[in-house]
């Protein structure tokens, strides 16, 4: 059953030269999530997209637990769990043999699995519907051809050109960002001298819902192959081709089909949904905030796909920026709060780039020594557990921890356990449902045992039980959370004044 993308209606522009408080450019998953988050915070948003549909082709598929927790806060959790393919296990093979398997969900008691796989187009359809319901002004077939540093946008539409002015301009327009180009901002980093054939294939196949990665398999000698299951019996297969491969030749169906058939065996029928050939890059902007223009997702930073750090990193950008921009627009915080978007998300981007670069370097050895070391690691790993952590087929996306954020209030007492300030609040089962589902998308407190009156939404949990254990908490302990559910502070028996001070600090008011 091939996928039929929706076509969204586009209209002639009627507000030539108008000024809007927030314009988002780019209706991919990061732009849409940011728009939805802002709209749910009652910020009026105009979103411009150069197409009239969702992302087609081989885009993000692996959505990490932290992204799912964010999307659940935006109201999409149940739909994603229902539609996506849940997986926690990865296997690595070398030649014909499994080298080892790993489980990414190390403990029970979380609502969301380590990952679900879901085609980006399905996620974007859900986000578009939610944006429509939330009142986002979605303008399709609006291609931004130029942006000025003060937020003036030159736009082409099928109905003719127009111009808009943004008080705040959010650039979520992807790796080839036109806004980045207009502002002449350098986007530098590393190109990997390798090519990969990405095929999305529809088939009935006996593989389980796991991540399988082969080094040098019999069906693709000398290269690596990655296999992932997606929704609707679509499978992502990723063949390493080498630098000398001809991209145009390699993506012709008559050349792709024998590669896939060799992998699946002669008796498995399949259809090609989408095929492309990629070269991967790791690079980022020097700064993501340029006064009142802010860059998110691939427009700000780009990674190779091993590790699922592109889409998941982009969603963490959205989660980080939306509440801060809403606080500034509502007059609750000074504009300097937005400098902490850089302070928190640039180290996160660097962590993603570092991990993605190391994985790609392992997968694409650069010289004889790198080949020899990789072969040595794979041989040793088959027999000796010590070598398995050295095998790098992708270090899968983990949530960023903002341990050094200026928004944190440092611990003023000793904690034996539990997540320190800057960490995303961990989920846990409670008597009335999942902990994260019970938290509002605002500043809030999580109290173990009775809390003092704080003038703040407060979730009170018993001082014993799974949540208390996970938070290392006993009676009187209190965690103070930001709207993105990162921990801003924690205390044993705080005074309301301490909590108020942490609240001001987390808004850059002091």
């Amino acid at each position, binding site marked *: 059953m091939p996928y039929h993308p929706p076509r969204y209606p586009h209209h002639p522009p009627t507000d030539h030269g108008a000024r809007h408080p927030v314009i988002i450019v780019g209706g991919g998953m990061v732009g849409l999530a940011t728009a939805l988050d802002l709209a749910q915070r009652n910020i009026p948003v105009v979103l411009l997209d150069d197409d009239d549909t969702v992302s087609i082709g081989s885009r993000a598929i692996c959505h990490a637990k932290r992204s799912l927790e964010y999307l659940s806060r935006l109201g999409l959790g149940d739909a994603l769990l229902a539609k996506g393919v849940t997986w926690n296990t990865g296997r690595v093979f070398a030649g014909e043999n499994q080298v080892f398997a790993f489980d990414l969900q190390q403990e029970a008691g979380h609502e969301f699995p380590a990952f679900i796989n879901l085609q980006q187009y399905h996620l974007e359809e859900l986000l578009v519907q939610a944006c429509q319901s939330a009142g986002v002004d979605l303008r399709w077939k609006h291609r931004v051809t130029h942006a000025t540093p003060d937020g003036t946008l030159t736009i082409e539409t099928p109905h003719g050109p127009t111009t808009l002015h943004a008080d705040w301009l959010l650039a979520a327009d992807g790796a080839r960002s036109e806004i980045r180009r207009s502002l002449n901002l350098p986007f530098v980093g590393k190109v990997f001298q390798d090519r990969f054939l990405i095929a999305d294939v529809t088939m009935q196949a006996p593989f389980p819902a796991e991540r399988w990665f082969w080094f040098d398999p019999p069906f693709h000698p000398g290269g690596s192959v990655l296999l992932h299951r997606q929704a609707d019996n679509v499978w992502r297969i990723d063949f390493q081709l080498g630098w000398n491969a001809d991209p145009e030749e390699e993506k012709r169906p008559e050349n792709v089909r024998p590669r896939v058939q060799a992998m699946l065996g002669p008796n498995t029928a399949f259809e090609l949904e989408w095929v492309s050939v990629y070269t991967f890059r790791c690079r980022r902007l020097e700064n993501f905030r340029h006064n009142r223009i802010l860059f998110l997702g691939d427009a700000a930073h780009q990674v190779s796909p091993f590790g699922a750090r592109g889409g998941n990193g982009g969603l963490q950008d959205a989660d980080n920026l939306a509440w801060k921009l809403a606080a500034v627009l509502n007059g609750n915080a000074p504009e300097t709060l937005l400098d902490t978007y850089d302070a928190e998300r640039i180290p996160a981007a660097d962590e993603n780039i570092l991990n993605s670069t190391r994985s790609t370097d392992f997968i694409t050895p650069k010289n004889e020594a790198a080949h020899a070391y990789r*072969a040595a690691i794979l041989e040793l790993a088959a027999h000796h557990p010590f*070598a398995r952590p050295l095998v790098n087929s992708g270090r899968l996306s983990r949530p960023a921890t903002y341990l050094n954020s200026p928004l944190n209030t440092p611990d003023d007492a000793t904690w034996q356990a539990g997540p320190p300030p800057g960490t995303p609040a961990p989920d846990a089962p409670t008597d009335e449902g999942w902990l994260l589902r019970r938290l509002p998308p605002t500043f809030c407190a999580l109290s173990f045992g009775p809390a003092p009156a704080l003038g703040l939404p407060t979730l009170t949990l018993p001082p014993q039980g799974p949540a208390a254990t996970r938070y290392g908490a006993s009676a009187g302990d209190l965690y103070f959370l930001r709207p993105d559910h990162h921990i801003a502070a924690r205390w044993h028996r705080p005074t309301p004044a301490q909590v108020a001070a942490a609240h001001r600090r987390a808004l850059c008011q002091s």
Partner: protein
Amino acid sequence: MPELILTPHLADPDGVFEALMNAHRDLPPDASRRLDAKLVLLLANHIGDAEIVKQAIALASAPA
């Protein structure tokens, strides 16, 4: 900070050298290279301290 040992530390240096040469004796160059890589990885794991390994890498990389 731990320091890479650079004073004599092997009770039988000739025996260790001989064991290394014996392991390489009949190997073609690529297998020989892979053997050395395995040895480095095994010994690095045994040492367990990345700082010591990096000191060794720096020393080995320095011009003679």
